């Protein structure tokens, strides 16, 4: 039950998209998202969509999985469309009934915005679908590095993210164990109204927090006894290297960004 929840949405694979350098992938994502906001007509979106489909094909991701990621924002998209249709004025009158007026400009802007949001989510989810959380944090650390000069502890932030990710499954397991132990004492986690249910969670949450703090203490000790010092220049096991494929991907992306933005 609890352990069925997957962390992030990473789908394991060995495709060219998967093995690209995470730093390059993050930068490409940022560039292309920016370009997505510069696109001025539907042709740009069409090209962008083809590009996304191409990446999905290359990465051998199940299309269903990518589409599933759109579900949570469907409401937002619908709301955008509806608001634009009814509120934006301009163009020719398409439909009128009592106080409801739909004009062509509204319909156009609505679908335009909706396409933008859908493409945006689809594209960013490609990053998390094809990059393992650990690689992602590595990439983020590297990109944040220059900010060290302004006092931002990049390597500590990334270490914290890594540890947090690492301990999510452990805590899940722990939560399930405590839940069982309390159930054995007659605790009820399934029925009652909202407030009652929230209250019923106390016997689960208190021990869970205590164990999390205990683990944190132990981990800190273990790290210190192996001479960990945050922020010091640390070497890594998997050194990230920019390869030719990364450069190619970068050039292609920039080309795409420029094309779609000025279309």
């Amino acid at each position, binding site marked *: 039950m609890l352990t069925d929840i997957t962390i992030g949405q990473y789908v394991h694979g060995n495709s060219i998209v998967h093995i690209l350098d995470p730093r390059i992938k993050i930068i490409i994502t940022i560039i292309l998202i920016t370009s997505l906001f510069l696109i001025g007509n539907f042709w740009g979106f069409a090209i962008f969509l083809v590009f996304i489909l191409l990446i999905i094909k290359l990465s051998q991701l199940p299309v269903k999985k990518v589409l599933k990621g759109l579900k949570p924002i469907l409401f937002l998209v619908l709301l955008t469309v509806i608001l634009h249709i009814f509120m934006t004025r301009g163009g020719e009158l398409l439909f009128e009934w009592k106080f409801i007026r739909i004009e062509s400009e509204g319909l156009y802007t609505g679908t335009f915005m909706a396409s933008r949001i859908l493409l945006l989510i689809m594209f960013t989810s490609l990053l998390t679908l094809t990059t393992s959380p650990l690689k992602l944090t590595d990439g983020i650390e590297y990109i944040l590095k220059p900010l060290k000069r302004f006092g931002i502890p990049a390597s500590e932030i990334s270490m914290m993210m890594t540890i947090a990710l690492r301990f999510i499954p452990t805590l899940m397991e722990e939560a399930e164990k405590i839940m*069982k*132990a309390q*159930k*054995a*004492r007659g605790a009820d986690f399934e029925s009652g109204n909202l407030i009652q249910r929230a209250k019923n969670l106390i016997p689960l949450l208190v*021990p869970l927090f205590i164990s999390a703090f205990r683990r944190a203490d132990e981990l800190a000790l273990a790290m210190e006894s192996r001479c960990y010092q945050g922020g010091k220049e640390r070497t890594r096991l998997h050194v990230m290297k920019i390869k030719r494929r990364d450069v190619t991907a970068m050039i292609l992306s920039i080309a795409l960004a420029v094309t779609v933005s000025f279309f």
Partner: protein
Amino acid sequence: MLIELKNVTHIYNQKQGIKALDNINLKIDEHDFIGIVGHTGSGKTTLVQMFNSLIKPTSGEIFVDGIKTTKKNVDLNRVRQIVGLVFQYPEHQLFEETVYKDVAFGPNNLKLKKDEIDKRVKVALDLAGLDFEEFKDRSPFNLSGGQQRRVAIAGVLAMRPRVLILDEPSAGLDPQGREKLKALLKRLHKNYNITIILISHRMEEITQLSNRVIVMDHGKIVLNGSPKEVFSYKEKLESLSLELPEITEILFRLRERGCDIRTDIFTVEEAVEEITKLMGSQKDAN
């Protein structure tokens, strides 16, 4: 018959089809003291969680005191009141501000009256060897590890279970704590007529306390009988990388060296007697 399992199979991971329990048939009688042994991952913990319906089997039937717990819509609270389960490191489940409140958590869930709860908490703490007046208002988190474990066990005892299951209750306790725990289990079994099921890696505990031993391997029950029977299968146990109680091991080794000696002995006293007898007879022969 208190608990009965019929053809119980439990598959852990549907995709990979890992069988945690493989066609288990088992009967547990009132007033049994059962020891369950088996190496890690043999299915012991899964098995005992079946007893109080924390896990439902993939197939098979389970009866607890005549209630078919594998049916839908079973009154789980009733089942869990009959079968109490003390998990590994039970002190990790403590959460209340005071010892009293934590022990009262179970009875509270049973919706008992205030004075009944009060009585139960007193008795449970007393049984677990903690002085009621001294401990009731203390925070469970300021106690020593051994005391915390007693509070947690008292929390289960306050449910007044007829069957008490303990999963590795002595793990992480010092020798003194282990002895106290053993005494507690003995008392519960003898004086309070509670059926006890004990999972342990310490063969001494198993042999000294239980009247029946169940050996598990790969989700199956491989041996099931009195300690004397089970521990006579030395080779079988060794092939499962389980060891004999130290005392029994010594007697087996003596026999290997040609001594005519009994090996179905689990206490130091009996072993001393047997060895003195042997030495006496050797003297006579000389």
